[in-house]
C-alpha cells in the first residue's frame, strides 16, 4: 500500500500542529465556537447528541495491520474500547474528549493516518471498490488513482469551501461495488479501443432527500487530463452551486437546475481553459502515476493450485464454515487465493461496530494470512483481500472465536443502519433498534441463506446516511406528530444497475416494521420462479403489486 514520503508526513504533522493551535485558541477564548466550527469540521470533529465524534479517514478503504492496531489502541485510549466503521469506508470514534483529540491525531499521524477532510464542505475521503487489486474483473487497481486524487484534493485551496460536501468514488470494473453512480463525482476507469486507460466521469449523483443517479458527463478523459477535468467540474460547481439553501446546495441540484447539456458545456469550456492556462501544473504526470502505482503492485503471491483439499474437506465436515464460504468469499485474480469478507453484522450487534480486541485480531490475521492488507467496505464490513484457500478455515475459526465469523454477507441481516435517534441530532426516528428487530426476526441463518441476496438499508431521517434509497428493501424513519413511523421502499440498487427504491405504501409504526419486512420477504420467497431469481429481479419482474396486496390487502 501507499507509504508516505517526507512531504506527505510533513503536511499531516503540520495539520496536527495547526489543529492543536485551533483547539488552544478555542479553549483560551480567542475564538468563538462559531469560528472554531469550520476547523473542527475540517478535522472530522463533530458535536453529536452526547459528545464529540471524530471521524478518521481511511483513504480508499485500505488499512494495514499496523494502522488497524493503532485504531484499536485509540479506541481503548480515547474512546470506550470500540470504533464504528462507516459507509464512507472511514472509522468513527464516538466518545473522544476535545482535550484528547490533538493527541489522538498525533498518534494517528505516526501510522500515516489523519482526519483531514472527513467533514466540512470540501472534497471528502475518496472511496473505491473494496476488492481493488484482488478482483479478476478490474481494468487496473483503482487505489492508484485514489491516492493521486487524495493528494490533489488535500488542502485544495480553491475547493475547501464549496457550497456543500463533495464525495468522489472510483471503480475500475463494470461490476460497481463502490456505488459510483450515487456520488457527486463517480469515476469509472475504462480502456478505450486503442487500449489506452482513461476515465469515464459521472456527475451529480447522490442520496439524501433528493436521490439522483449520476449522469455521464464524459465517457473518456485521458489519464493525463483527469485532474484538469476534475478542476473544471469543481470550479463550475463552486461558482454555480446554490448557497442560499442547504438542501439545494449539492451538485446534483446544480446539474438538474442548470440542465445536463448546459452544465456539460460549461465544464467543457472550463476544461479547455484549464488546459490552455494551467496544463503544466495540473497534468497528471506519468512519472507520478508510476511512482504511486509501484506502492500498489502485487504482493508476493505463491503459485498454487486453483483448488484446495484443505478447504474442501473443511467445508464437508463443518457446515457453519461451509455456510460462511458460500457467502463471505469472492473470487481472486490469482489461483489458490480468495477474497475473504469479515461481517461486522453479528446477530444482535450494532452494524459496523468493532471492539479494540476485534480490531487487534483482524490486524494479526491480516498480517498472517493477507499480506497485512485490510479493507473497509461501504457496506460497513471488513475484507482480507488475499487469503489462500488453504488458510480460509483457520482464518474463519479465528474470526468465529471473537464473533466475526458470521456467514451473512449480502444477506438480509447484513444491513446498513445509520446511527439514528440514539446518536444523531438530526434523526426523526430510531434506526439501530429497528435493525435489531429485523435481525432477530431473521436470526435463522438457514433461512437467510434460502432467501439469498437481499440488502436492507435503514435511515433515521431523509438525509439517508443509511442509504435506504438504494436498499433492495429501504426503510426510512419519519416523524408523524411526534411518533416514529417507517416508510418502506423496494427495488433500490447502488450497483451498475443503479435504481432508487419505490415507496410501497403508507408507513408502518415502530412495532410493525419487522412484520412488514417479513411479509415482503415471504411474498418474494413464495413468488419467485426459483432460487436463481433474486429479490431484486423479482421486484423488477412483478413490480410493487404483490407486495402492496400482501402488506395492505384491500385497505
Amino acid at each position, binding site marked *: 500500500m501507499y507509504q508516505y514520503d517526507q512531504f506527505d508526513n510533513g*503536511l499531516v504533522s503540520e495539520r496536527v500542529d495547526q489543529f492543536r493551535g485551533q483547539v488552544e485558541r478555542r479553549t483560551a477564548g480567542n475564538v468563538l465556537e462559531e469560528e472554531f466550527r*469550520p476547523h473542527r469540521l475540517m478535522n472530522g470533529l463533530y458535536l453529536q447528541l452526547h459528545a464529540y465524534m471524530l471521524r478518521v479517514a481511511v483513504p480508499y478503504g485500505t488499512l494495514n495491520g499496523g494502522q488497524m492496531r493503532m485504531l484499536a489502541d485509540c479506541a481503548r485510549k480515547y474512546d470506550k474500547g470500540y470504533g464504528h466503521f462507516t459507509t464512507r469506508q472511514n472509522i468513527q470514534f464516538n466518545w473522544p474528549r476535545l482535550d484528547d483529540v490533538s493527541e489522538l491525531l498525533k498518534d494517528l499521524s505516526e501510522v500515516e493516518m489523519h482526519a483531514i477532510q472527513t467533514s466540512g464542505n470540501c472534497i471528502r475521503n475518496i472511496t473505491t471498490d473494496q476488492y481493488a487489486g484482488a478482483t479478476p474483473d478490474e481494468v487496473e487497481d483503482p487505489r492508484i488513482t485514489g491516492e493521486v486524487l487524495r493528494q490533489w484534493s*488535500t*488542502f*485544495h485551496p*480553491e475547493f*475547501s469551501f*464549496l457550497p456543500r460536501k463533495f464525495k468522489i468514488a472510483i471503480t475500475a470494473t463494470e461490476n460497481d461495488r463502490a456505488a459510483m453512480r450515487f456520488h457527486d463525482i463517480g469515476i469509472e476507469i475504462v480502456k478505450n479501443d486503442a487500449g489506452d486507460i482513461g476515465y469515464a466521469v459521472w456527475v451529480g449523483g447522490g442520496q439524501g432527500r433528493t436521490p439522483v443517479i449520476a449522469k455521464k458527463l464524459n465517457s473518456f478523459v485521458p489519464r493525463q487530463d483527469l485532474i484538469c477535468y476534475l478542476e473544471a467540474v469543481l470550479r463550475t460547481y463552486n461558482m454555480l452551486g446554490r448557497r442560499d439553501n442547504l438542501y439545494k446546495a449539492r451538485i446534483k441540484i446544480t446539474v438538474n437546475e442548470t440542465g445536463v447539456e448546459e452544465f456539460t458545456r460549461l465544464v467543457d469550456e472550463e476544461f479547455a481553459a484549464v488546459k490552455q492556462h*494551467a496544463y503544466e501544473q495540473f497534468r497528471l*504526470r506519468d512519472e507520478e502515476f508510476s511512482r504511486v502505482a509501484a506502492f500498489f503492485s502485487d504482493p508476493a503471491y505463491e503459485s498454487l493450485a486453483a483448488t484446495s483439499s484443505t478447504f474442501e474437506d473443511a467445508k464437508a465436515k463443518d457446515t457453519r464454515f461451509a455456510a460462511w464460504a458460500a457467502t463471505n468469499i469472492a473470487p481472486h485474480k490469482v489461483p489458490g487465493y480468495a477474497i475473504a469478507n469479515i461481517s461486522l453484522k453479528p446477530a444482535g450487534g450494532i452494524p459496523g461496530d468493532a471492539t479494540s480486541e476485534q480490531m487487534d485480531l483482524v490486524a494479526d490475521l491480516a498480517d498472517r494470512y493477507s499480506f497485512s492488507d485490510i479493507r473497509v467496505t461501504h457496506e460497513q464490513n471488513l475484507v482480507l483481500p488475499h487469503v489462500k484457500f488453504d488458510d480460509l478455515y483457520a482464518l474463519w475459526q479465528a474470526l468465529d472465536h471473537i464473533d466475526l465469523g458470521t456467514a451473512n454477507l449480502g444477506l438480509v441481516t447484513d444491513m446498513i443502519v445509520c446511527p439514528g435517534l440514539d446518536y444523531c441530532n438530526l434523526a426523526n426516528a430510531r434506526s439501530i433498534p429497528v435493525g435489531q428487530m429485523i435481525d432477530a426476526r431473521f436470526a435463522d441463518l438457514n433461512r437467510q441463506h434460502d432467501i439469498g441476496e437481499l440488502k436492507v438499508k435503514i435511515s433515521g431521517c431523509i438525509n439517508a446516511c443509511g442509504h435506504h434509497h438504494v436498499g433492495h428493501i429501504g426503510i426510512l424513519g419519519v416523524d408523524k406528530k411526534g411518533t416514529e413511523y417507517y416508510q418502506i421502499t423496494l427495488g433500490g440498487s447502488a450497483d451498475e444497475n443503479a435504481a432508487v427504491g419505490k415507496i410501497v405504501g403508507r408507513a408502518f409504526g415502530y412495532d410493525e416494521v419487522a412484520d412488514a419486512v417479513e411479509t415482503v420477504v415471504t411474498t418474494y420467497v413464495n413468488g419467485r420462479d426459483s432460487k436463481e431469481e433474486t429479490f431484486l429481479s423479482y421486484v423488477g419482474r412483478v413490480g410493487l403489486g404483490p407486495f402492496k396486496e400482501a402488506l395492505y390487502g384491500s385497505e
Partner: protein
Amino acid sequence: MVLNKDGQKLVEDSFTLLADDDALNNDQAQILPLARFLDAVEDGSLNARTAPLGVLLAPADDTRALVDHLGKLALIAIDFPQYKDGRGFTHARLLREQLGWTGELRAVGDVLFDQLNYMLRTGFSTFDVRKAYDVEHFADAINAFTEAYQQPGDGRITVIEKRHAVG
C-alpha cells in the same frame, strides 16, 4: 489593517471602498464594486481619472468581465462576505491563472485566520485582517503549511514537482 504576505502593514494604503451612495472621485484612490466600475467605464466617467483605481469582486460576479479592463486597475479586491462562501478563491485563481493579473490582489470581508494559507496559495497578495490576535499571529496562519500538493496561484513548486525534480 491591510497586511502583505510577509505580515507587513501597507503604509501607503489609501484606498477607500466606495459605498453605494458615495460619489466617484477621480482624484482619490477608490475601490468600486464591479457593476459600478463597468458602468463608469461605459459612460466615460473614469476618463479624467488621476488617482489609482481598484475594483471589488463579490462572490456572484463574473471574473471574466474584467478581462479587457485590467490595464485601468491598480488593485483588485475580492470580498468574502462569509467565510463559508469559497467563490473568492475561484475569482483569485482565474485572475492569476487565466486573466494574467499580476497586480495587487486583496482579500477583504470575513478574512478568516485559518483561510489565510489558502488565500496565499490561490494568489492573494494582501489581506485585510481585522482582529488584533490575527494580526499578531499572522505569520503562523499564512505559513501553516510548508508544502502543497497543488499550485493554483502562487507559483510555488509543488510536492509533485519536488519529487520528480532532476538531480
